[in-house]
């Protein structure tokens, strides 16, 4: 189907089902119950899952296939966000032109940064990309954030190109030449797809459960499915094969008379454009672009996502992105009061003891938990969560295969 082999089609279908049913899957606990704390099915977080999924998928095309570890990929995320914001400010609130400009701008920057950085490999390449990202961050944070249209004017550039620390925001005075400048009520319009507002949502009440279907989420999920499909095609294409050969032995490739540079640059640019697309989507879901999303910690985060999920696998980065965003948003919100209510059934001294043990790993200590999980994954599952999944599946399959033999039937291995 769609030019994919059977296995890839099945994977794509699985991802389609997971993303479409996400509002149900992520809200397993009824509203008002103690476990509702762990529900992740609200628009903001679901959008983050798929947007960072796109970011990680793109990163995986570079890192997973060619083995080049870019440590400055967040720069493209930021560039995409700023580009989208400028489209919202100047052109109008439709998300499609905004996303188009995000992809184009990040592509242009990726050509420039990639051309220079790819002259080196290994750690030097990583450091170069890191340097470019931190340069972009400082430019966005202060250099490009100065008043560019004169202190007495209140024009488009009154906070520079990037808006500095507060971030680039929409204002009522923005021209928005193709869309409405202000809504009928006198407010700033919100990003929309031909009138379908990204922040609109429908709710479904089933008993105690509340499921939220957000327009923004489904739009972002659709874009992610396209990106995912494209990445499968890249992985399976001759181009993908060249990239894999760069990873396994670049020197041998040189000796066969093939110049790997153009391929690497292409991979870098594609992956930069993926990041730009993710950045544009972030701005479409929440119209503000801040420089922090270009900071080196943001670049490090996508490396973590990819490794946690499984480098070089198709679905791994998406899983990794989901796992990290879930911890960042859910684990970090548990505070000691909530812990005390959970363990209230224990005797007082024991309750305090249990809470004291768990407390460092939740709330603002969620990084600690992430670090431990990351270590465990790297040590015991070098192939990431995907390898974990395969191991579990393998255990069941072993059993199943035995059963089937007893039946005397044979089915093709999955």
């Amino acid at each position: 189907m769609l030019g994919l082999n059977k296995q890839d089609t099945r994977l794509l279908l699985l991802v389609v089902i997971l993303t479409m049913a996400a509002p149900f899957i992520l809200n397993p606990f009824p509203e008002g119950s103690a476990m509702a704390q762990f529900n992740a099915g609200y628009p903001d977080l679901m959008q983050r899952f798929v947007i960072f999924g796109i970011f990680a998928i793109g990163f995986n095309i570079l890192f997973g296939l060619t083995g080049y570890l870019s440590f400055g990929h967040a720069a493209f995320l930021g560039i995409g966000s700023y580009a989208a914001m400028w489209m919202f400010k100047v052109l109008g609130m439709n998300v499609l032109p905004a996303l188009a400009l995000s992809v184009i701008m990040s592509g242009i920057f990726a050509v420039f940064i990639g051309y220079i950085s790819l002259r080196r490999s290994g750690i030097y390449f990583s450091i170069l990309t890191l340097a470019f990202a931190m340069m972009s961050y400082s430019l966005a944070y202060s250099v490009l954030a100065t008043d560019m249209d004169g202190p007495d004017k209140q024009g488009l550039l009154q906070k520079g190109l990037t808006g500095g620390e507060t971030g680039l925001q929409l204002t009522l005075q923005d021209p928005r030449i193709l869309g409405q400048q202000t809504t009928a009520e006198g407010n700033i319009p919100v990003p929309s797809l031909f009138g379908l507002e990204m922040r609109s949502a429908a709710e479904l009440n089933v008993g105690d459960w509340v499921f939220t279907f957000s327009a923004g989420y489904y739009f972002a999920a659709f874009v992610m499915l396209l990106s995912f499909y494209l990445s499968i095609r890249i992985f399976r294409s001759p181009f993908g094969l060249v990239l894999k050969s760069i990873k396994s032995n670049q020197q041998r490739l040189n000796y066969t008379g093939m110049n790997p540079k153009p391929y690497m640059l292409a991979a870098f640019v594609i992956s930069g454009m993926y990041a730009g697309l993710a950045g544009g989507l972030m701005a479409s879901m929440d119209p503000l672009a801040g420089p922090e999303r270009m900071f080196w910690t943001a670049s490090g985060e996508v490396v973590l996502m990819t490794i946690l999920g499984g480098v070089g696998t198709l679905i791994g980065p998406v899983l990794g992105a989901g796992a990290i965003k879930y911890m960042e948003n859910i684990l970090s919100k548990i505070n000691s009061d909530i812990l005390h209510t959970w363990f209230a059934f224990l005797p007082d001294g024991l309750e305090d003891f249990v809470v004291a043990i768990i407390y460092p790993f939740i709330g603002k200590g969620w990084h600690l938990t992430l670090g431990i999980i990351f270590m465990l994954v790297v040590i015991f599952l070098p192939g990431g969560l995907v390898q974990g999944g395969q191991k579990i599946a393998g255990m069941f399959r072993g059993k199943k295969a035995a059963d089937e033999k007893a039946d005397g039937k044979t089915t093709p291995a999955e």
Partner: protein
Amino acid sequence: MSKSNLTRRGLIKTGAVAGAAGLTLPTYLRADGHSGFTNAPTGSTVTLGFNVPQSGPYADEGADELRAYELAVEHLNGGGDGGLLNTFSSKALDGTGILGKKVEYVTGDTQTKSDAARASARSMIEKDGAIMITGGSSSGVAVAVQALCQEAGVIFMAGLTHSNDTTGKDKKANGFRHFFNSYMTGAALAPVLANNYGTDRKAYHLTADYNWGYTTEEAVRTSTEAMGWETVGTVLTPLTQTDFSSYIAPVLQSDADVLVLNHYGGNMVNSLTNAVQFGLRERVANGKNFEIVVPLYSRLMAKGAGENVKGIFGSTNWHWSLQDEGSKAFVKSFGTKYGFPPSQAAHTCYVQALLYADAVQRAGSFNPCAVGEALKDFSFDGMGNGPTLYRGEDHQCFKDVLVVKGKENPTSEFDLLEIVEITPVEQVTYDASIFGGELGACNPGA
């Protein structure tokens, strides 16, 4: 998945079942809104969102803000000694929650980053159903979250944010601020500085590199230059900086005789300590004693900087040693609960929570537009700052401003600042149009 049953027939079957279930289930669209605004409280409780920095350079302030919010919730629900409810000039609140609904709250960490603060505010609005967001201990964050609340259709009650932009360039119809701003600091501080240090000083500014730093530097520069001071240098320092030695050394090379530290929180504690270590306070420049000025002061900072704050001038929104009934009541209930006096951040956050609750009570509705109307041009007293006006044009509170000085002989570990002058509100009032920006229309969301 141990057993997959992905046949065509199986898929159609499950699809049909799911479809039928979906059609028969009761559904409603939030967008249609049964009550016409975002997160209208339906049960017997109402949820407020407290979005404060729990990590980063303003974590101390954030922790104190959270204490104040918890105290406010307790008082609103009729617990404790009632605190400022007893001295507040409006008597709409009766300790039975807000409009009879018990007040509950959720908290979030802004990390003093705009992106993180917005994410945390969005999750409180979308996941926890918060009807109002309050807090923030950085103007960049306050401006970003205020814009988010405007889009989402909930009220934003700004906490500790001192930049002119919050109710200036970036003001929003759904956002309200009780705290004072950089302009007021400049207007109140300049005359005191002129009296103490003379009118022919040369000032050097170190400024935190973000929204608040810029407007504070500008306000202090403008008002001191108007008295005859000269500004010989201004340098921006990153917000995350913890060692300012490399920024202090050039001050020694310049011919400045005053150092203005446009820093707050942990930044100010570190920069002031570095400045003292470099011997700036013993320095004599241009035949005068070298002086240090900290435009925005708080007790938490004074505590962090210890000995170094003695004799240093600054301004503050409120101080626990004020002797009016409101201040005394607040210090008493905060002190009883936590064992130490509140900071100005705690005070403004507590007051904001009460002002919101009171406005809802008077408006008779949680609808942000009705609440906004009730807050506009609202005059009140008994909250510790004397008679105060919530100006309708820019949603900024106008009240007296305190000029304070690091105490030479502190009597306790909390008694670190002394009030030098209470600048009357007339002296710090300005025309609402000077900063530009537009409020826009109130947005009830939904």
